[in-house]
């Protein structure tokens, strides 16, 4: 598995989403919770718009100087005894990690949550190489037991409710207790603890790497990243090349934005910074540390009009406010990156061909742009994607004809006037009691969902004209 998930047809995925009441209920209630908490947390912090501007500035500065900071990071990781590998592609990253795991005779690998390892399909690669891979983030673990894929970038099992989780635990692990979060959580904790204690390798993502010290940092609520980096002898952290901050000071700002935007917390329960390998006299930490920096299409985005999409700190605030996401769920996007940011990012990382519906899976309501803590103009980038697809000749022929017709109509006032005058008459055969319930042509899709009123008896302009005449004759 890589970035693409689910049925190849967008329509099928959407239909599956819309018909899945359990999932939609879970999504709607989770969105409601996240949005409420986020509102409270940002309000409490105060000057939210200034914080956003600062976040944007930090991300933009870092990306403008990304080569410098990557070099600095790499030097500092090496100084602290770590190894750095730059992977141009998903395959290169997977090959390198497999090599390390093989050399260390890594039979059991524990992982903390990481979207970039989902993107490159690392689990599958490691399993094929003969290792047992265990996800230790609760949500990811549930999905792994279930053979499912993430539907959200922060809370990957958002689409499941506690009854479904209980059932998965019962079927796969013989769980026989209640569906309360406490008991489910305790069970997962006990099961996972055994794996932590016996794992050979710990693999993590990386929320931000700090260039000035060579540290990798993890923001979690479960503490699993901390266990995954302290118990096994070998630690491998995987990061997208953009996930870097110059110093701890900028990290402070971005984490402040991240935890509030993601889950409405001032801080998550655990924020961990790990710098290098275990030094003499230290009692924990890995003997060996590898930092895998993944490009996989990111450097192609640098320097383009989409560069700000790389500002993303993966908080999912845009996903949590998106009404389209709420009604179709994450899997419908067909990408491990769903929602507005997914619709922007996925075509950039994986091309337009398999994701051509994504830029159109938005009403351009701009709720996403409004909440983004690092000010990515998400809805504008979706329009830009649409433009590029038109430029690439990927738009449907019927649409092209319609849009050319529209431009002619809207630049020829005489034609515009005539057609607007005739609209009412033209729709007459479908009109009953000033209402259309089953319209022709493009109206068909409209009236499949809702009624369409009959156009006014008199257009505004003819009223205005008559009125002027009347005034003159007075």
């Amino acid at each position, binding site marked *: 598995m890589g970035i693409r998930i689910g049925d190849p047809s967008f329509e099928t995925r959407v239909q599956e989403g819309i018909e899945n009441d359990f999932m939609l209920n879970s999504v709607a209630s989770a969105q409601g919770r996240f949005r409420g908490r986020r509102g409270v947390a940002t309000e409490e912090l105060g000057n939210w718009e200034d914080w956003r501007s600062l976040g944007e500035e930090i991300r933009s500065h870092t990306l403008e100087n990304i080569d410098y900071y990557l070099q600095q990071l790499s030097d500092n990781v090496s100084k602290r005894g770590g190894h750095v590998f730059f992977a141009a592609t998903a395959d290169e990253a997977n090959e390198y990690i497999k090599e390390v795991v093989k050399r260390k005779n890594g039979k059991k690998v524990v992982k903390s949550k990481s979207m970039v390892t989902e993107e490159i399909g690392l689990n599958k690669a490691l399993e094929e190489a003969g290792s047992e891979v265990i996800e230790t983030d609760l949500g990811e673990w549930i999905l792994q037991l279930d053979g499912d894929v993430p539907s959200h970038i922060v809370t990957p099992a958002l689409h499941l409710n506690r009854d479904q989780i209980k059932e998965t635990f019962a079927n796969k692990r013989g769980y026989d207790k209640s569906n309360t979060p406490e008991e489910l959580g305790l069970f997962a904790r006990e099961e996972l603890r055994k794996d932590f204690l016996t794992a050979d390798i710990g693999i993590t993502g990386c929320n931000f790497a700090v260039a000035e010290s060579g540290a990798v940092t993890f923001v979690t609520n479960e503490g699993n990243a901390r266990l995954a980096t302290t118990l096994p002898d070998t630690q491998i952290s995987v990061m997208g090349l953009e996930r870097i901050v110059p110093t701890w000071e900028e990290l402070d700002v971005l984490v402040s934005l991240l935890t509030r935007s993601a889950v409405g917390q001032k801080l998550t329960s655990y924020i961990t910074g790990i710098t290098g390998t275990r030094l003499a006299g230290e009692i924990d930490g890995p003997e060996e540390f590898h930092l895998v920096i993944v490009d996989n299409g990111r450097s192609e985005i640098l320097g383009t009009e989409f560069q700000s999409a790389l500002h993303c700190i993966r908080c999912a605030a845009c996903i949590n406010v998106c009404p389209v996401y709420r009604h179709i769920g994450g899997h419908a996007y067909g990408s491990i990156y769903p929602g507005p940011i997914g619709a922007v990012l996925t075509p950039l990382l994986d091309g337009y061909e398999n994701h051509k519906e994504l830029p159109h899976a938005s*009403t351009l309501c701009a709720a996403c742009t409004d909440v983004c803590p690092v000010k990515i103009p998400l809805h504008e980038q979706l329009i830009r994607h649409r*433009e*590029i697809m038109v430029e690439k000749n990927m738009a449907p022929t019927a649409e092209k004809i319609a849009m050319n017709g529209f431009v002619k109509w809207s630049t020829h006032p005489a034609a515009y006037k005539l057609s607007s005058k005739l*609209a009412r008459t033209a729709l007459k055969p479908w009109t009953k009691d000033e*209402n259309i319930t089953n319209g022709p042509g493009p109206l068909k899709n409209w009236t*499949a*969902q809702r*009624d369409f009123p009959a*156009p006014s008896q008199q257009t505004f302009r003819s009223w205005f004209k008559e009125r002027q005449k009347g005034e003159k004759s007075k």
Partner: protein
Amino acid sequence: MKVSLFITCMADIMTSNVGKDTVEILERFGCEVDFPDTQTCCGQPAYNSGYLENTKATMKHMMKVFRESEYVVGPSGSCVAMLRGYEAIFRGDPEWEEEAKKLAAKTFELSQFLVDVLGIVDVGSTFKGKVTYHPSCHMTRILGVKAAPVQLLQNVEGVDFVELPHGEDCCGFGGTFAVKNSVISGQMVQEKADHVVETEAEYLVGGDMACLLNIGGRLSREGSYVKVVHLAEILNTVK
């Protein structure tokens, strides 16, 4: 004060009474309203679908239409935001940059014009009934007009105002989205209509005809008694 009415194609064809009400309100407050007869559409359907280059012809046409106007006022947050958006679109275009900038500076949505330019927060109208208000996406988030329409509405004598739950959520219109992704759009407008019904309001008021057409269409499909009216209509109801 001279004001050119930007009717928007939607109101021109579908709900001409909104245009009439807008004219009458503006005149009531001493504006001299003209109607540049060659105006068409702001270009949003094609622009939002990705046809930027083609749509520039439409935008240039509209800029010419309103070239001589002192103020341009329209009864739609979305269409006004689009006219204002020409400024960003033509930035760096030696021929049109200035023109787009000028148009953006003199174009206002109706409630925005009444409150911010004319300084009127109470239009002195009377409307009896329980009303709720849908703050449309482009009006609030692109144009940045949030308080003005609500303030005007709440000051109307006889209006019993109830807040629309989750009002800030999109109704699912989204221009061509409503046709292109009609199934998703249908789910979204259903949710919006449910929230409207929840308020037990008799009237749903809005400042964007397109959203109202969408929500109203769904309410009508469900046989709901809730009536959908444009803000201009309420502001123009005088004793």
